[in-house]
């Protein structure tokens, strides 16, 4: 089964239809997604700004990480759960949204950045834990994280707009390709 067919199957399920048509559940899930964003991206931003030496300069980096990470992870879990529900409510259109696809790519890159930070940079934190100016690699990871989460927020918000939706044709060939639109060949 292709992913598109899977999304079409998902869209026909009771739960998806109920969530999609609900008067309050969908807005509640959406609002929770935004409130979790305040907490999760908020704390992630504080961590990034500390890596860049711009905030909490007297606090050791390890302390900021240790104290904020559990809450950051908690916020992320809420973001994922509400995000999956939002996808579940509108599967086909979201799957074929170029903004959603861009967001997934940015999410993967952000995950990669976290993984690189923890395996390559964080392991030597003892050398620079108290430094205001952290090593170049740590600063780069902080900056990359800021940019990536910003891009995730913007592309996430843009999913709501239908400029590039598959059912609005004609679209540039690139859009149809990137969104995976199934477009019938033009009739002569």
């Amino acid at each position, binding site marked *: 089964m292709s992913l598109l067919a899977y999304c079409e199957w998902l869209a026909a399920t009771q739960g998806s239809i109920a969530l999609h048509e609900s008067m309050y559940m969908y807005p509640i899930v959406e609002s929770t997604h*935004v409130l979790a964003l*305040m907490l999760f991206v*908020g704390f992630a931003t504080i961590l990034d700004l500390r890596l860049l030496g711009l*905030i909490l300069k007297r*606090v050791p980096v390890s302390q900021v990480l240790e104290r*904020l990470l559990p*809450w950051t992870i908690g916020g992320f879990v809420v973001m994922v759960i509400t995000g999956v529900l939002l996808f579940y409510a509108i599967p086909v259109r979201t799957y074929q949204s170029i903004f959603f696809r861009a967001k997934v790519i940015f999410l993967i890159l952000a995950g990669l950045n976290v993984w690189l930070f923890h395996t390559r940079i964080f392991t030597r934190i003892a050398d620079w834990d108290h430094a205001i100016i952290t090593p170049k690699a740590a600063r780069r990871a902080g900056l990359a994280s800021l940019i990536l989460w910003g891009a995730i*927020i913007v592309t996430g918000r843009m999913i709501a*707009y239908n400029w590039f939706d598959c059912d609005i044709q004609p679209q540039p060939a690139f859009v149809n390709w990137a969104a995976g639109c199934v477009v019938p060949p033009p009739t002569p």
Partner: protein
Amino acid sequence: MLLPFFQWCETLWLGQFVVGSLWLFPVIESVHLLALALLGGAIFIVDFRLLGLGLKDRDVSELARDARPWMIGALLAMILSGIPLFLSEPVKCYYSTAFWIKMTTLPIALAFAFTVRWRVALAEPVRGTARRQQLVGALSMALWFTVAAAGRWIGFS
């Protein structure tokens, strides 16, 4: 009574400029959301600390001082991006309950942040302040969450 004012707002150049563009509203909205994330971080590290969570080995005053410029910067960005968003649909806002909830809680949250919360955050942790600090942290979080949720809800009406 206020309706004529909101109708007048709708005639302003800035709002019409936003309405006339396909991209401007979403772009300004994105800036509004990015600033919200920063605001959340700058406010909640202090509120969490007031609740005895998060960076609990540091003084509240240290966190509050460090977070303050970021909080003010984020608030300015929120207000500067919020104004054109409002001006693009003032009459819709007038009839939106969510808008009025936001406009009621926002001044309260702002006043609270710069008076009670700021003073409590700077106060030395003497005996008996713990309960008060927790209350202030919880109230601040509740206020800002309400402002944010009501703000999101304007878009649903």
